[in-house]
C-alpha cells in the first residue's frame, strides 16, 4: 500500500512490474495530451459563449426551441454510469481479476457509450427537424462545433475500447496493453468531465429563463 505513485491517477502497483514502471512515462505523456485537448474544448466553449445571445442567434431558433432536457439528462446518467463501469474495469485489472472480468466491464462501458451516442444522434435529428442547423446562425454553428466534438471523442473512445478488447484477446494482458487501458480510462473519464460542463453550460444554461 505504501508504494509511491509514479504518475497521477490510479497506479497499478509494483506487483505489475514493467507495466507499473512503464506507466510513469507513458501515462504522464497522456496527461499532457489531455491538457492539450482540454485547451481545445475550453476554446470551443469560449467561442460558444460569445455567440450564445440573440445577436448570435440571428433571429433563428434558440435553445428552448431545440433542446430536450429529459433526453439530455438520461444521456448524462448513461455517460456517468459508463465512467463507473470503466472504473470497475480498471480496478479488475489492478487487482488481477483476470481478462474476463476486465472484458465484461469494458463491454458494459462500450454499450453505455454507444447508447449515449444513439440518444445524442436522435437529439441531433430533432434539432435538424426544427431548423437548428449550423447553417442557420453563428449560435448553432458554435453548438454544432462543440457538442458533436464531444460526441466524436466518445465515438473514438468506443472504437478504442473495441481495439483494446481485440488486443486483450490477441496479445493477452501484456504490460503495453495494461498501460493502454490506463490511458483509455483517463480518456473516458475526461469525456465525462467535458460532458458535465456541456450539460451545465450548454443545456442547463441555455434553458435557464
Amino acid at each position, binding site marked *: 500500500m505504501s508504494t509511491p505513485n509514479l504518475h497521477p491517477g490510479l497506479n497499478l502497483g509494483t506487483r505489475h512490474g514493467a507495466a507499473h514502471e512503464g506507466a*510513469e*512515462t507513458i501515462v*504522464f*505523456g497522456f496527461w*499532457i*495530451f489531455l*491538457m*492539450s*485537448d482540454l*485547451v*481545445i474544448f475550453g*476554446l*470551443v466553449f469560449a*467561442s460558444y459563449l*460569445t*455567440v450564445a445571445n440573440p*445577436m*448570435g*442567434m*440571428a433571429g*433563428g431558433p434558440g435553445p428552448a426551441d431545440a433542446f430536450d432536457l429529459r433526453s439530455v439528462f438520461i444521456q448524462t446518467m448513461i455517460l456517468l454510469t459508463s465512467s463507473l463501469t470503466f472504473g470497475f474495469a480498471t480496478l479488475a485489472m489492478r487487482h488481477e481479476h483476470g481478462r474476463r472480468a476486465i472484458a465484461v466491464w469494458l463491454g458494459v462501458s462500450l454499450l453505455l457509450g454507444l447508447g449515449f451516442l444513439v440518444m445524442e444522434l436522435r437529439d441531433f435529428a430533432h434539432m435538424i427537424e426544427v431548423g437548428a442547423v*449550423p*447553417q*442557420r*446562425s*453563428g*449560435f*448553432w*454553428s*458554435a453548438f*454544432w*462545433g462543440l457538442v458533436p466534438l464531444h460526441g466524436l471523442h466518445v465515438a473514438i473512445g468506443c472504437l478504442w475500447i473495441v*481495439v483494446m478488447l481485440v*488486443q486483450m484477446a*490477441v*496479445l493477452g494482458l*501484456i504490460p*503495453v496493453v495494461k498501460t*493502454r487501458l490506463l490511458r483509455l480510462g483517463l480518456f473516458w473519464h475526461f469525456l465525462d468531465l467535458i460532458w458535465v460542463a456541456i450539460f451545465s453550460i450548454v443545456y442547463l444554461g441555455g434553458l435557464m429563463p
Partner: protein
Amino acid sequence: MSNAILGRLDLSSLSIWRAIENPTGSELIGAGAAMLVIVGGLAAVILLTWFRLWKPLWRDWLTSVDHKRIGIMYCALALIMLARGVIEGALMRTQQAFGLHGGFLAPDHFSELFSTHGTIMIFFVAMPFIAGVINYVMPLQIGARDMAFPVMNQISLGLTATGAALVMISLVLGEFSTGGWANYPPYTGGDFQPGPGPDYWIWAIVLAGIGTTLSGINFAVTIYKERAPGMDFLRMPIFCWTVICTSIIMVFALPPLTVAALMLAADRYLDFHFFTNDLGGNMMNYVNLFWLFGHPEVYLLVIPCYGIFSEVISTFSGKRIYGYMSMVYATMSIAVLSFCVWLHHFFTMGQSASINVAFGIASMAIAVPTGIKVYNWMATLFRGRVRMTVPMIYATGFFYLFVVGGLTGVMLANPVISFQVHNTLFLVAHFHNVIIPGVLFGLLAGYHYWFPKAFGFRLHEGWGRAAALLWIAGFSFTFLPLYWLGLQGMPRRSVTFSDPAFQPMMWLALFGAALIVSALGCIAVQLWISIRKRDQLAVPLGDPWNGRSLEWSIPAPPPAYNFAVLPQVCARDDFAEAKADGRAYRAPGQYEDIEMPDNTAIGMIVCVCATLLGLALVFWIWWLAILSFAAMILALIGRTFRVNARHVIPAAEIAAEHRAWLARIEAAPAVDRLEETHERNLGRAVLEQPGRLEAAQ
C-alpha cells in the same frame, strides 16, 4: 464545376497552363516557380536513382526513429523551405523597388507571395528548424538515449513534412491563399475566396500543427522523465530549460490555431457561420483565437534561440553562463507572459481603451526578463576567453540588432503609437527585426555550433564568416529602411505605391535583399565545400569547442545509442567539470546491453496519407479524402498490434566501440583554443588554465 473523380481539379488548376493561356510577366513567374518545383523534384528522383540511394535513404533515414536522424531531417526540410522563403522575400522587395505606379507582379500574385512567405517562414522554416535542433541536442544534453516516444516523434516529422509538401504543391496546382499568414476571415471565407487557396493554408497548418503539438508532448515528457541520473532540473543546460518552456507553449498554444483553422474550414466547407459577416458570425473570435496561438508562437520560436545563444556564448567565452538562476526565471517568465499579451496584435480592432492599456503594459513587461537575459549574456562574455567564431559573429549581430527590434517592440506595445503605425512597414520592420536576428541568427549559430557533433566535421570557417556578415549587413539594409518608410505612412502588403519619396529607401531595401540572397548562397557553398574538405575539417573525437555539456562528451557523430553508459551527472556544466577534475573519458567498469526501438515506416505512411488527404480536401476529391483518412487510421491501429518492436545492442559491441574511441582520445593531440579552427583540431580540447578560468568566473 466539380466532378466525382477529380473534384474541382482541372486543367486551369495548373499554374503552367494558366501562364500559357495568359502569358503575363506575373503568370510566367508563377509558372517558373512551378517548373522549379517539378524540375527540383525530378532532379532529386534522378540523383537518388543514379547513385542508388533509395535504399539507404529509406533504411537509414525515412524509417529511422533515432532522434538524431529525425532532427537532421527537420533541419534539412527547414533549409530547403528557407531557400523558397528567401527567394519570395527578394521577389517582393524587387516588386516594391519598381512599384512606383506599377511594377511587374499582379496584385493577387503579390498577395500570394506575402501569404506563402509568412506561412513558410514561420511554420516550415523556423518551426522545423527549431524542432530539428531540439530533437538533435536536447536528449544528448540531458543524457538520454532517445525521446520518450520515438515513434510519435517520427509521426510528428511526417506531419510537418505534409504541411510543407502541401505549400510546395500549391505552386503547381491551384493557388495559395491571398489572406496573409494569419489568413483572417471573412476575407478568407467562401464568399470572398471560393478557390482552393485558403484551403491549402488550412490543411497545411492543421496537419503540421497536430505534428507540432505531438512534438511538444514528446519534448516535455522527455525532459521530465528521461534525464540521466543526477541531472537535476537545476543542473540542466539553459538550452534544455528553454526547451521546457517551448514545449509548454507547443502543448497549450497550438490548440487555438487548430481550433481557429478547423472552424474556418467548417465555414468554408459546410457553410457554418463562425466567422462570417452575416447570421451571427463573429470574426473577432478568429482574431482572438489566432493570436492566442500567434503570440505564444513567437516566443516558441525565440526562446529556444535564447537557449542556443546561451550555450554558444558560454562555450565560446570559456565560462559558465552568468546568472544561471536568473536565466531560468527569465525564461519561465517570458513563457508565462507570452500567454497574456495576444491582444496587442489588434489594438485597433475595437476594444475599450482600458483593455488596450492592460495588454500594452503586459507586453512591455516582457522587456524586463528579456533585458535580464541580454545583460547575463554580456556578463558571460566579460573577461571570458572569447573566440570570434561564426556562431559568435551571429551572436554579436544578435546583440545589436535584436535590442533594436526589442525596443521598437516596446514602442509598438504602446497602444497610442500602435494606432499611428499599425499596418505599416514599421511593423514589418519590427517583426523581421526580432525574428531574423533573434530566431534565424540563433538557429544558424546553432547550426554551426552543433554541425560537427552531428556529422563529425566542422563547417568551413571562412564561408561561414562571409555568410554571417552578409546576413547581418543584408538584414540591416533590407529592414532598417522599412522603419523609416513605415513612419512615413507606407502601408504593408502594398503591391504598388504612388509617393516618389518612398523610392530611395525601396532601392536601399532591394540592395539589402541582394545581400541576403548572397548570404544564403554562401551557406550553400559553405556546405558544399565543407563536405568536400571533410577530412581536413574532421573532429571525430567529439569536442571541437571545449564544450561544457554532455553532448560533447561522446564521439562525433554519436552512436545510435548516444551514451555507452548513461552518465552520472554531478554538477552544472558537467562535462566541463569532469574535464577539470579528471573524470572525463574514463572507461566504465562494465558495459550493459542496450535496448533500442526498431525502425518503422509508420511516419512515412502517415505523411503520404496525410498529404493525399490534404490535397483531396483542397480539391474536393471526396473519395480520396475518405480513402486516405481510413488508410491512415488503419495503419495507426495496425501499428499498435506490433509490440516488442525493439532490438538489443550487445554489451560487447558497445564496449568495443567505446574502448576504441577512448584509445583514439588517449592518442590524439589536444588542441588549445588558438587552434580551434585549425586542421589540428580533432575534437579533443586542452584544459584551460585553471587560474585563468577562476579569474574569469
